[in-house]
């Protein structure tokens, strides 16, 4: 059976070139970067190089990079660390309604601890209105966090415009660029942000690797206490192989970005066309053009996401869904709901993350296999039966 991995939004595979550079640091170069001997030196030098590679990808400075163990950790460090460091100035925070839970719930945790939270809405494409953000800034606002690209619907937010709008207020501006970094151009200066989160496993780097870029001079209260690693901002023995792999992935992403984007957006457009033309009552979620080049997301009406996932998996196809049944909490995606999609339709969420390993054949295969799966489930669906009665019968 053909195997088609289209869940690169959940995690990408690692590129072999990145694995190769990690291997020595898994095996022979095992020193602790904090150690004062040549074993330590080799490890420290490797981290220094990775820091430069990651900084280069986002046009930041190496000393502004704080390595973390995941994107979620980078987001938590940014939200909690910046808000707590600024708490003397005010207690008001603004985030968008479609942030990842590592931002949204971090902000909620701060809310419980006495901060005030404003959640700005999004439109039906998942876009935040820059004016809406600016309008909500108050005297005591200390932090705004608006994601760069949404992992569930692929929409790219107008971060640079928001940055411009709020620049003169002096309020700190963080962006969760975990879904975007390495996939599209990300430039901290161009975006006008003060802090930015990224994660290696979103662009063919290793799991367990993430980073927070924080503008030089900005105070940050660490999430964890301990040693002096990462300039005292993130303690614990450094995960040298993961950091090295992240660095290499950053370098490769920078090098290959134009060709990857071209290839992936072509495949994506083919997939979107194929699905919308072969399946009735399928809805593209997110913005039609202002979206990640490797991202295609839909709601397929009258049926439920988990059931689709399982049948697709039985055909060797891996995708994700934001349906309630696929979430541990059995709640429909807060992103789809925030975009005004009904709970019923949100149940049919299906999300494709294309990757550099995919080819036209993969897309053809999906377009061949998905329609009969949808039909099979619709044949079982009381909603579809009712719809057919009402509209055809």
């Amino acid at each position, binding site marked *: 059976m053909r195997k088609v991995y289209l869940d690169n939004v959940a995690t990408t595979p690692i590129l072999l070139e990145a694995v190769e550079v990690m291997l020595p640091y898994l095996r022979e170069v095992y020193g602790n970067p904090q150690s004062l001997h040549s074993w330590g030196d080799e490890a420290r030098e490797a981290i220094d190089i990775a820091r430069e590679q990651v900084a280069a990808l986002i046009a930041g400075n190496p000393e502004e990079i704080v390595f973390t163990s995941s994107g979620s950790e980078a987001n938590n460090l940014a939200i909690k660390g910046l808000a707590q460091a600024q708490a003397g100035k005010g207690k008001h925070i603004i985030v968008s309604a479609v942030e990842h839970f590592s931002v949204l719930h971090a902000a909620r945790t701060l809310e419980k601890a006495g901060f005030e939270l404003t959640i700005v809405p999004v439109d039906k494409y998942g876009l935040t209105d820059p004016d809406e953000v600016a309008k909500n800034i108050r005297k005591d606002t200390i932090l705004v966090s608006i994601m760069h690209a949404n992992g569930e619907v692929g929409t790219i937010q107008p971060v640079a415009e928001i940055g411009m709008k709020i620049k003169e207020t002096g309020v700190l501006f963080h962006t969760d660029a975990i879904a975007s970094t390495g996939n599209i151009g990300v430039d901290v200066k161009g975006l006008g942000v003060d802090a930015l989160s990224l994660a290696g496993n979103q662009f063919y780097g290793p799991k367990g690797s993430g980073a927070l870029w924080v503008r030089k001079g900005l105070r940050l209260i660490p999430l964890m206490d301990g040693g002096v690693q990462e300039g005292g901002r993130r303690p614990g023995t450094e995960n040298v192989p993961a950091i090295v792999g992240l660095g290499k992935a950053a370098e490769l992403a920078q090098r290959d970005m134009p060709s990857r984007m071209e290839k992936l957006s072509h495949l994506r457009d083919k997939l979107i066309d194929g699905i919308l033309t072969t399946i009735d009552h399928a809805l593209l979620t997110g913005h039609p053009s202002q979206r990640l080049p490797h991202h295609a997301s839909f709601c397929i009406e009258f*049926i439920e996401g988990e059931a689709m996932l399982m049948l697709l998996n039985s055909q060797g196809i891996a995708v994700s869904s934001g349906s*309630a049944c696929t979430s541990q909490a059995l709640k429909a995606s807060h992103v789809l709901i925030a975009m005004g999609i009904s*709970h019923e339709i949100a*149940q049919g969420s299906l999300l494709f993350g294309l990757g550099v390993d995919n080819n036209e054949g993969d897309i053809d295969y999906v377009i061949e296999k998905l329609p009969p799966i949808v039909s099979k489930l619709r044949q*079982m669906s*009381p909603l579809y039966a009712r719809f057919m009665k009402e509209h055809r019968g």
Partner: protein
Amino acid sequence: MPVYSEKVMEYFMNPRNVGEIKDADGIGEVGNPVCGDMMTFYIKVKGNRLEDVKFQTFGCGAAIAVSSMVSEMAIGKTLEEALTITPSMVAQELEGLPKNKFHCSNLGAQALRKAIRDYANKKGIKIKGLEEKGEEDEEGEES
């Protein structure tokens, strides 16, 4: 994938008794698409026995497997026997369900019960095992 038993997978991939019975003797609908699952059960009664049971389900793999299992368990049983089918019996027949999918097995048993109630109401008869619970209880039971 969710950690489903082989039995669940089998009943999901090849569901038994899918569909509508046009001239059903009783129909029971439970759940709500907003919550993620919705099931409609159709029964055909002959004498005192469930001659045929069919279902339509909007929901996850577990919901479909449960519907399928309940329909299979019910066919051929007397109405009284069918009413003794409990969610935990369904889960057991399916060789277990993940914790956060238990509510699906409730839904299946409820839908069947509702279809039988519908039949009883239409016929104006009483069936042992039916009067014990109010409709509201059924919707909420064990969930």
